[in-house]
């Protein structure tokens, strides 16, 4: 029983990261209909920035806001400089540009910080408490920070005029222009915010997976899956989807392990959990194409 709880807890902790990545993807998707395949590499790059700041002697809780600000600026610049000229380009061209960005961030990180794996200190104090056996302090910290970011974003979009304007620009750009909103800047801000959210995901997950240019590849995939399971056009759904995928992934491996212990037959292990989790996600999507929390958009022909 304790083992099962452990698995659920660490699934939730990973899920918090997937949720942040999913949210970053959705924030760009709702306003542009593009999936930013470079989101993971951008987050990885941010994590390296944070590592560098810490390495230079800044305390973590100064390095993190600085990293977030840096990521925000990078996100805005990418939208303004690289994606702006492609507003009317075919979808596939944009996909290739994202792949190009991915390659650039990946290789720059490798060139600047090399490909050797670096440990990343956990910012959360290591203390023991009642549930220590089930969940570690860093995992609790991951969940708390993720939830805090989500709550802040929710309040921003729900209660501030700028947040409302950004939603309006994403939902109906033409009408948004007609009420005086500068839609182009809203897109750039959306990119900036997405990059910021992604940077938090990167920094939080770095102590778990260790810092190296490849660290976000699998996480991006899980985040993507989470976003789609939740409904790609619904930020709340994406967050829920991220947590679902996180728990699902751990459950698959755990059940495989239990099965092998009980019957001696190896069916699923750590090597296959990604595949099986994705298979389940895809099954959900074939049965319910708009995702669990998404809604079907009716298009006029």
């Amino acid at each position, binding site marked *: 029983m304790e083992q099962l709880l452990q698995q659920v807890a660490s699934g939730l902790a990973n899920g918090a990261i997937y949720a942040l990545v999913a949210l970053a993807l959705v924030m760009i998707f709702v306003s542009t209909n593009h999936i930013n395949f470079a989101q993971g590499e951008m987050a990885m790059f941010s994590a390296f920035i944070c590592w560098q700041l810490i390495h230079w002697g800044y305390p973590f809780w100064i390095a993190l806001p600085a990293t977030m600000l840096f990521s925000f600026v990078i996100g805005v610049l990418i939208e303004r400089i690289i994606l702006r000229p492609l507003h009317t380009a075919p979808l596939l061209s944009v996909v290739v540009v994202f792949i190009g960005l991915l390659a650039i961030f990946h290789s720059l990180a490798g060139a600047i910080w090399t490909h050797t794996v670096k440990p990343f200190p956990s910012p959360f104090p290591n203390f023991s408490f009642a549930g220590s056996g089930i969940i570690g302090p860093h995992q609790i910290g991951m969940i708390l920070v993720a939830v805090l970011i989500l709550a802040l974003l929710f309040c921003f979009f729900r209660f501030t005029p700028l947040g409302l304007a950004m939603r*309006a620009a994403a939902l109906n750009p033409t009408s948004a222009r*007609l009420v*005086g909103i500068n839609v182009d800047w809203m897109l750039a801000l959306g990119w900036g915010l997405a990059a910021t959210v992604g940077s938090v995901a990167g920094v939080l997950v770095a102590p778990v997976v260790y810092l190296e240019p490849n660290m976000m590849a699998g996480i991006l995939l899980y985040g993507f899956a989470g976003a789609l399971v939740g409904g790609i056009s619904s930020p709340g759904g994406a967050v829920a989807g991220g947590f679902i995928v996180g728990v699902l992934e751990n459950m698959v491996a755990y059940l495989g392990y239990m099965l092998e212990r009980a019957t001696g037959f190896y069916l699923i292990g750590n090597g296959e959990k990604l595949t099986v989790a994705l298979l389940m996600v895809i099954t959900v999507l074939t049965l319910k194409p708009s995702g669990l929390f998404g809604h079907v958009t009716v298009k006029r022909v």
Partner: protein
Amino acid sequence: MSNILEVENLKAYYGASQALHGITFSLVKGGITTLLGANGAGKTTTLRAICGMVRAEGFVAIDGEPVTGKATEAVVRLGVGHVPEGRGTFTELSVEENLRVAAYTRRDKAAVARDLEMVFTYFPRLKERMAQQAGTLSGGEQQMLAISRALMLGPRLMLLDEPSFGLAPLIVQEIFRIMRRINEEAKVSMLLVEQNAALALDLADHAYVLETGRVVMSGTSAVVKSDEQIRKSYLGY
């Protein structure tokens, strides 16, 4: 300068094809002018060209300020409330959010609050539906919301694109009555595009008749209305 809107030799293009071939007209401050004509005559395009929503050449001035070539949002911030074709509802936002977002560019909170009250006196129905998702409103209510959105900008000029489209006659009458009140009480000048010529001529003081992107005739509503020839060949009633 007593003209709120000045349009000279306005040309507009969709891709390579030209939709407006040099249109000239003006709108007196406080007045209501209507653009009439058949489908494809260029009425909607004219409104879009004024707001910088299509590629356009020529001269357009709002209250003396040239706006040709400006971005839509910049034109709108001069006090132009465009009620677009198809109403442009933010279907996934609530009615309240639809109204609040329209006041996004305004810093004077007291004035915004006053305008919100004004909107509710015109359209009490919207007040009842404040928290409702705007996409679930009926067609008439969405049209009211679209007009209200334009009002929340605190406009000097409203551009109305077929406010009667797809609505039941009773509701159309109600909306047109309120448009007259807005014009008289809030002193908003209006440029009205309509297929329903009889209705538009009753409301407007001036009319321009468009055909394939050109003005073919113009005059006061009374003159246009009384001209049998125009009525039969262009207005079809």
